[in-house]
């Protein structure tokens, strides 16, 4: 009987299975990508730190003075201390790599992962290599005896390759050399970036961390393994949030489609079920049978979804690398990390959703009154009954309340719960809403087909709701995503305009410790065609060991004494003799700082206390940024260098020519790593990147909506086919074929419109939760709502059209002459 049902309605069954599969696939892919990316990150951290129990890290790329090394080493709480110089550089092809300078005699105890590679390998280099030889991870493709060219700042360094680091994780782009040679070659004499520490036996990690922290200058921090893993979690959060949301969309849509498919299938088989009851089948048996059908659907969908998810994750990782294009570590495809437990869990999720979708239909099947169902092949339920609103109201109220809950572990779990609850509320309210929206139509003195269609929809809101729930879910969630993305894009666009006021921008890539020296800055400012030049210094600072580094920007102030930034609220004044600092929104939220607060910055080996004087929007630096006046920065650090500059062109100056002059004014090595571009172009590129990174999102959303529409199509056609006798009767009593077709098209259109309106309304609410709850809680930035009217209107129109078209196609079949005679079929 089950198989017969599915064979009779393969499309509907397929769509339900497909929806489950899409949901499971997305969820599983998100999990795999996340897990593999995290594993990759952990591997990177492990490779670089080995089994170090504890690390001391520089708060900025300037490193710390090497005299800290003996101070820490002699503390007595450590059994080994390994000093490390870290240089983030680029290969000749522009891809980034990490150069580590190690003392192999020290590293051998603390970071054997590197030292094993550095041990025997150090001896295997052959006579050709010298003391500045380096050893490369497998991902760096250069053999012993060759030379590796590395670029950093404006510097090119050619290093003889002595051999490989076979024990380093594939995918890591790592260069290991002797610490002294690296210090000399990269001009880091006297500076260290890291100390890897092994805690002495019998000393607790906390005690060791405390003892170490006590001797650290402001430009170094203790990092514990826990802080490390927390930080790596932060890196991939953005992706988890986005893709997790999409997975939820698909899975919930799938659940509702299973509900639709099962409800219809039950309705169609009422008499068969009734017959089974008469023949002695127990009600529980029927209930279990329907559940089992759902379970089979869920199982097939889940298995297909798991396979598709693994494939999806694999291609995403291949396409974007372990950090999904985030740039945290350089382009490598990490291996897929599949754990049996999580695989089963995701598969079970699909199964649970399918079972949940089958629950109500199964209860219905068990409740079919045998006698009545056998006597008339009529519809289940009482169309006259007012659909209840209380459950929907309850769900909605709970959902709204959840929106106000704080994040859990830095993740907007309640925000998601809120979205799910509001979606459930919307679907639960569908019968009521459909009735409310359609009833007025039935009273209109409209042409016959309109009145018939309206009467039918108003009279059978439950059926309308069954057809609609999948559509409402997918349309609602898509509208919510669309609203969020459009608001995000609009805000980013506005922000780009605010942070790029000059005509042309210059940026030295990857140059935290060098860039434009004062003489070069003066030369650039004096170029013909340049009206004004604003130099900026940007560098990264670690403010808290367990958080990723923030960006420090030293910017010349504008007219009011504060720089021109995309303010969230007008900046406030600061006291005489105070150093004002303006912090970005993510920094404000992450570190709980507001205007008027004092804030400590580790600069030039000292702790500088500044006054937070304003908060500005920033979508570029997720982990936070702080702006100082360039004059204050110069006074504190004596660093007059710059690595960014904005040029305002003189009126009438030829932009292309000026760009050429700026490029030519740079020394060749520096020019190789310097981007000079008109701000309009940067803005266009930024938006293009934005659109590209959301293109995946759009594509996946489109899939979700297509699945939703397909669900409606399958449901509508099934319902239409089930009404063949009704059409036969109407034909008898004098309805024309055209009238009935018009009725069906209108029904479909009404249905689609109701679904679209309800979905969009629901989407608007859920979009607001995404904008005001999920985004701030995940990314720590806010945005202004921007309504994508075109997208929403188009979506509504497309849904309406798709729905009516489906009804029309189904109607053609139902109106064949055989069907007309169906009035006389018994059942």
């Amino acid at each position, binding site marked *: 009987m089950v198989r017969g049902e599915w064979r009779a309605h393969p499309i509907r069954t397929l769509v339900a299975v497909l929806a489950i599969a899409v949901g499971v696939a997305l969820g599983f892919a998100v999990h795999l990508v996340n897990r593999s990316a995290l594993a990759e990150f952990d591997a990177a951290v492990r490779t670089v730190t080995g089994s170090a129990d504890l690390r001391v890290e520089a708060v900025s790329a300037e490193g710390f003075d090497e005299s800290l090394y003996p101070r820490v080493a002699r503390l007595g709480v450590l059994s080994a201390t390994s000093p490390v110089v870290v240089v983030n550089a680029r290969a000749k092809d522009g891809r980034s790599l990490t150069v580590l300078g190690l003392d192999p005699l020290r590293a051998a105890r603390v970071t054997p992962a590197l030292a094993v590679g550095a041990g025997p390998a150090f001896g295997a280099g052959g006579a050709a290599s010298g003391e500045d030889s380096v050893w490369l991870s497998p991902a760096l493709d250069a053999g012993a005896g060759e030379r590796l060219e590395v670029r950093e700042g404006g510097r090119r360094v050619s290093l003889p390759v002595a051999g490989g680091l076979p024990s380093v994780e594939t995918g890591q782009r790592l260069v290991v050399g002797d610490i002294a040679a690296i210090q000399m070659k990269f001009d880091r004499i006297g500076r260290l970036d890291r100390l890897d520490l092994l805690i002495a036996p019998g000393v607790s990690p906390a005690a060791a961390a405390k003892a170490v922290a006590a001797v650290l200058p402001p430009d170094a921090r203790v990092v514990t393994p826990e802080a490390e893993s927390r930080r790596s979690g932060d890196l991939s959060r953005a992706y988890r949030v986005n893709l997790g949301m999409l997975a939820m969309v698909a899975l919930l849509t799938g659940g509702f489609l299973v509900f639709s498919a099962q409800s219809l299938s039950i309705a169609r088989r009422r008499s068969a079920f009734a017959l089974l009851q008469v023949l002695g089948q127990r009600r529980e048996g029927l209930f279990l049978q329907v559940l089992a059908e759902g379970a089979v659907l869920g199982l097939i969908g889940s298995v297909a979804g798991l396979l598709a998810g693994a494939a999806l994750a694999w291609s995403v990782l291949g396409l974007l690398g372990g950090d999904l294009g985030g740039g945290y570590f350089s382009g490598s495809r990490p291996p897929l990390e599949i754990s049996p437990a999580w695989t089963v869990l995701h598969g079970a999720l699909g199964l649970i959703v399918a079972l949940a979708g089958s629950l109500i239909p199964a209860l219905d099947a068990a409740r079919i009154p045998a006698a009545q169902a056998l*006597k*008339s*092949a*009529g*519809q289940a339920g*009482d*169309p*006259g009954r007012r659909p209840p609103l209380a459950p929907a109201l309850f769900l909605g109220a709970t959902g709204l309340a959840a929106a106000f809950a704080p994040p859990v572990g830095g993740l907007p779990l309640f925000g998601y719960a809120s979205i799910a609850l509001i979606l459930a509320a919307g679907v639960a309210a569908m019968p009521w809403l459909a009735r409310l929206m359609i009833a007025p139509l039935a009273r209109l*003195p409209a042409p*016959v087909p309109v*009145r*018939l269609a309206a*009467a*039918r929809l*108003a*009279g*059978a809101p439950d059926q309308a709701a069954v057809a609609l729930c999948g559509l409402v879910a997918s349309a609602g969630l898509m509208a919510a995503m669309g609203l969020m993305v459009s608001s995000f894009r609009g805000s980013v666009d506005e922000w780009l305009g605010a942070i790029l006021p000059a005509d042309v921008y210059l940026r030295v890539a990857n140059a935290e410790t060098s860039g434009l020296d004062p003489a070069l800055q003066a030369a650039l400012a004096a170029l013909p065609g340049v009206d004004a030049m604003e130099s900026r210094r940007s560098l990264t600072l670690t403010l808290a060991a367990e958080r990723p580094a923030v960006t420090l920007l030293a910017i010349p102030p504008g007219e009011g004494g504060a720089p021109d930034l995309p303010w969230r609220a007008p900046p406030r004044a600061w006291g005489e003799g105070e150093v004002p600092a303006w912090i970005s929104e993510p920094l404000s939220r992450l570190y709980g700082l507001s205007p008027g607060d004092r804030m400590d910055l580790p600069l030039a080996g000292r702790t500088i206390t500044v006054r937070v004087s304003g908060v500005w929007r920033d979508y570029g630096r997720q982990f936070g940024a702080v702006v100082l006046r360039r004059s204050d920065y110069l006074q504190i650090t004596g660093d007059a260098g710059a690595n960014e500059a904005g040029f305002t062109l003189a009126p009438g100056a030829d932009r292309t020519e000026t760009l050429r002059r700026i490029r030519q004014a740079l020394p060749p090595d520096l020019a190789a790593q310097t981007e000079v571009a008109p701000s309009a172009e940067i803005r266009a590129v930024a938006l293009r990147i934005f659109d590209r990174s959301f293109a995946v999102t759009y594509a996946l959303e489109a899939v979700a909506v297509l699945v939703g529409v397909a669900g409606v199509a399958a449901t509508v056609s099934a319902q239409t086919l089930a009404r063949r*006798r*009704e059409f*036969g*009767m*109407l*034909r*008898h*009593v*004098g*309805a*024309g*074929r*055209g*009238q009935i077709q018009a009725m069906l098209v209108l029904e479909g259109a009404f249905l689609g419109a109701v679904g679209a309106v309800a979905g969009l309304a629901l989407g608007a609410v859920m979009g607001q939760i995404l904008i005001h709850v999920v985004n701030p809680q995940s990314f720590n930035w806010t945005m202004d709502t921007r309504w994508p009217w075109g997208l929403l209107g188009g979506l509504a129109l497309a849904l309406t059209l798709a729905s009516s078209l489906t009804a029309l196609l189904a109607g053609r079949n139902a109106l064949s*002459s055989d069907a*007309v*005679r169906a*009035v*006389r079929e*018994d059942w």
Partner: protein
Amino acid sequence: MSTPPPLRIRGLAKSFPGGRLLFEGLDLDLAAGEVVAVMGESGAGKSTLLNLIAGLDTADAGAIDIAGTPLSSLDEPGRTRLRREHLGFVFQAFHILPYLTVAQNTALPLVLANVDPSQALSRAAEMLAAVGLAGREADLPSRLSGGELQRTAIARALVHHPALILADEPTGNLDPETAERSLGLLLEAARTRRAAVLLVTHSARAAESADRTLFLGRRGLGARHAV
């Protein structure tokens, strides 16, 4: 008489698609207000005959005039209009739309004929009163018993004053007592409104209520059961 007869059939022939002959040379005349029962074995073509008369199926030969209009002269919309104006139907399975109220179901032929909705509903209410369902206008079909559903169907069949009512086993789904009452109601209402009734039935008891009973066979309709 200037009024044409509700139904006039001459030389009607119909075969199954496979070629097996159902009947041929079938003639039938119904006068206004006349009730004729048609009986016959299963598969004799009773339902096919009704479809042919309703213009939903095409005969191999012969002519059907309804209220003086030859069906063959009409195109599809014309036949639809003809059904809407001159025919009423009562089905074994009632075919009352569950999502419409009793009055709305009854008013359906008027609505399809584009009668003003309020007028249509008041005419439907009158008709319902005539079949004993006064006060039930706003009920939904799910509240009605089988007999009440069939009375609604009867009201729907008569509400637009058709010349001819085609009733296909109208009592097949009812218990004998209800069946008898419903049939009585149908015939009385039809006679009152001078509508002819062609009653297809298996039930000899039902056929007794008719003015005359004909048997359908391969040679058409005869007064006696013909093999």
